[in-house]
């Protein structure tokens, strides 16, 4: 199947073509460009599956396709450097390609029901945006070097901006779009420094191969080199953390998470595709992609794990008080990506990727389900105006429920398996590392909140009595909505089969397919395998009693918490006339409702600090700098009006002045020449 890879560029090229077609001819096409998008993503999906099959057959692909530019590298290495576009298809990227193209494909179909059927205007722009996004995301996924990854990482940010701001005629959407771009840009600032630093340090930005920066870093650490005045280990940590800035921004991790809830201003389909399943995953994916590099730096990993654990809990607590269905999902997304970061941070490469995959499916499902609910509710998003949709929209309900169970981590839905694996990995490392233990603890507590807000959402939306006219008479949804829901619903249920690690360990059966997949059992690029990473990791693991016992304890704890959260939600909200119960939170309520004032301080940073500072700079510029320029001119003209007064108009004065001037010259020269 080696020939398959020569078609790899087409995976990204299809959606790019769809972008161009939709943008230029969309207006005159039936369905305004949707067909082009669906065809393109279907093509991408098929080709991605083909790549997956090719990798499964033991092939990998790492090829430079295009030289962007090349030149002399300055800095620590004096040799030339090439900046190229290349494709790296290994187990990780092949898997991600499938996830992205699948979700994109489903979202395109769903859009027929969500956008076209609802009579939106500007659809060519919408489909063009989706096409461009899919192109960028796929290209990011199989990028074979850090610079190319950065470039497409930025492009997906652009698409996110454009699509969040799709309804640009409102005030809120453009504002949210701006915020999303800005906050992620802030992260990307660090990322770009990281890229530049890595390129300048190692003279390469390749992810894989002997001349990758990961290999170079390993050598440098081994040789005890000094890089930019730091020892190699520290420098790797610094650059790794710089790149992490981009990751935190894109994956909406604390403290860059604030943009994601606002991004819900975009169409729900966009939220499903970009702000849940794929683009937000880009950050986590990047960590996985260059995991070998982070593995060299325990400090960086510990920070990743801690930030992940903290974000998981932090976001989950905010999710419990939200009234807007999409807001709940947004915070849940932040929280879930926190888990993935935690997983990767503790060295659970497989667990992290596993959760990434599962989350893509069930979160896309939940968002699309929410989209369906929004259609049902005539574009109402407030859960307090819903209720009782269970009977009226059974397909939506049951698929949504599947997604919710997966999200809450209820056995045997997919989310349970991956989340449990993350927590297990965190626990065994945490037993020796207090920082990781703290991260684990936060992740564990977050499970409770996850269960609670998930089922609070389910109960408020679907159970009880209808609380508004729209809820009593929902708008019907068509096949274009149901097909994607059903597809993703099935995946949410069964995707966990990919890696039943606890079962495997307890029962001793070899059913950890994903682990084998990522470990290169079928085929992999050298150095980019789970076991290769494992060798680099400096973590010690411990167990509670035996390994099996540890597994059971971990799984039991998280299940218990998930159930209790869900149960609490059931008790409070699965009633015909639910009430908010927010007063029970007491003094914490305001804080949580205001998202811990995270938005406030960031807005203050922008408006309260930067803007006044810039105004002060402007005033300084106008008065001091420009003032001195104008001052010189004014002074000259003043001097001018003074000089010309010498010319009194009276000829006798002229004579006197001439004589005076002459005598002055005479005296000066006389003194100078020593006459006197």
């Amino acid at each position, binding site marked *: 199947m080696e020939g398959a890879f020569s078609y790899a560029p087409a995976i990204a090229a299809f959606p790019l073509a769809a972008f161009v077609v939709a943008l230029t001819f969309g207006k005159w096409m039936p369905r305004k460009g949707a067909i082009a998008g669906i065809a393109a993503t279907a093509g991408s999906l098929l080709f991605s599956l083909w790549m997956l099959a090719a990798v499964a057959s033991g092939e990998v692909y790492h090829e430079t396709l295009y030289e962007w530019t090349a030149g002399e590298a300055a800095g620590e290495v004096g040799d030339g450097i090439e900046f190229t576009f290349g494709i790296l298809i290994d187990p990780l990227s092949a898997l991600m390609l499938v996830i992205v193209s699948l979700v994109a494909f489903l979202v395109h179909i769903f859009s027929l029901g969500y956008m076209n059927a609802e009579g939106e205007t500007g659809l060519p722009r919408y489909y063009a945006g989706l096409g461009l996004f899919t192109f960028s995301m796929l290209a990011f996924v199989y990028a074979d070097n850090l610079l190319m990854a950065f470039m497409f990482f930025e492009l997906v940010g652009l698409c996110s901006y454009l699509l969040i701001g799709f309804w640009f005629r409102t005030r809120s959407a453009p504002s949210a779009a701006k915020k999303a771009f800005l906050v992620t840009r802030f992260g990307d600032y660090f990322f770009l420094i990281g890229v530049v630093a890595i390129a300048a340090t190692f003279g390469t930005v390749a992810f894989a191969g002997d001349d990758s920066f990961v290999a170079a870093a390993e050598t440098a650490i081994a040789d005890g080199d000094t890089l930019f005045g730091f020892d190699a280990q520290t420098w790797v940590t610094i650059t790794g953390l710089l790149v992490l800035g981009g990751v935190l921004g894109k994956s909406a991790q604390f403290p860059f998470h604030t943009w994601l809830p606002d991004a819900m201003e975009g169409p729900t389909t966009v939220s499903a595709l970009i702000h849940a399943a794929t683009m937000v995953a880009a950050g986590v994916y990047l960590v996985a992609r260059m995991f070998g590099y982070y593995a060299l730096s325990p400090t960086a990993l510990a920070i990743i794990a801690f930030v992940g654990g903290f974000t998981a809990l932090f976001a989950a607590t905010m999710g419990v008080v939200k009234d807007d269905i999409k807001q709940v999902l947004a915070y849940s997304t932040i929280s879930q990506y926190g888990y993935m970061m935690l997983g990767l941070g503790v060295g659970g490469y497989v667990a992290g990727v596993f959760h990434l995959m599962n989350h893509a499916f069930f979160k896309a499902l939940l968002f699309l389900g929410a989209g369906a609910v929004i259609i049902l509710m005539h574009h109402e998003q407030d859960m307090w105006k819903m209720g009782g949709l269970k009977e009226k929209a059974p397909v939506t309900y049951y698929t949504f429920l599947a997604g919710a169970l997966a999200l809450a981590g209820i056995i045997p839905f997919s989310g349970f398996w991956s989340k449990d694996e993350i927590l297990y990995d965190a626990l065994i490392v945490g037993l020796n590392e207090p920082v990781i233990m703290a991260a684990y603890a936060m992740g564990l507590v977050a499970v409770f909140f996850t269960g609670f807000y998930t089922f609070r959402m389910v109960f408020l939306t679907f159970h009880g009595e209808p609380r508004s006219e729209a809820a009593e008479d929902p708008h019907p949804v068509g096949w274009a909505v149901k097909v994607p829901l059903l597809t993703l619903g099935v995946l949410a249920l069964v995707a966990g089969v990919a890696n039943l690690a606890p079962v495997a360990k307890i029962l001793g059966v070899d059913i950890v397919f994903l682990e084998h997949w990522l470990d290169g059992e079928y085929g992999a690029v050298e150095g980019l395998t789970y076991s290769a990473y494992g060798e680099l990791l400096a973590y010690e693991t411990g167990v509670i009693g035996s390994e099996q016992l540890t597994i059971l304890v971990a799984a039991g704890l998280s299940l218990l918490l998930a159930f209790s959260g869900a149960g609490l939600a059931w008790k409070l909200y699965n009633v015909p006339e639910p009430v908010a119960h927010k007063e029970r939170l007491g003094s914490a309520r305001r804080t949580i409702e205001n998202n811990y004032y995270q938005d406030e301080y960031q807005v203050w940073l922008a408006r309260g600090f930067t803007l006044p500072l810039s105004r002060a700079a402007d005033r300084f510029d106008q008065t001091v700098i420009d003032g001195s320029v104008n001052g010189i001119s004014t002074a000259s003209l003043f001097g001018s009006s003074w000089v*010309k*007064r010498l*010319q*009194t*108009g*009276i*000829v*006798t004065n002229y*004579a*006197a002045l001439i*004589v005076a001037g002459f005598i002055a010259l005479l005296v000066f020269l006389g003194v100078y020449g020593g006459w006197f």
Partner: protein
Amino acid sequence: MTVGVEYYVLLSMALFSIGLFGVLTRRNALMFLMSVELMLNAANINLIAFAFYHGNLTGQVFALFAMALAAAEVAVGLGIILVLYRNFRDVDVTVPTTMRW
């Protein structure tokens, strides 16, 4: 018996200064003109005295030229003073001050 050249120079300088004083103080155009003539003649004295001193005639000849030129200058000057009077009804040189600054 000859008078030393320095006395001629002193005389000429005195004359020059008197002329200059006149130029600076007199407001009547004619007086102004006469004062200038004094200054020119101071130069002539010098020329002649130095010619004598140096023993060549250049200075004396030049003094003749200078007198002729002074006369021409006065002719032009008087013409101008005439039109001055016609336009300003005065020969006070400080009166015409329409152009200044």
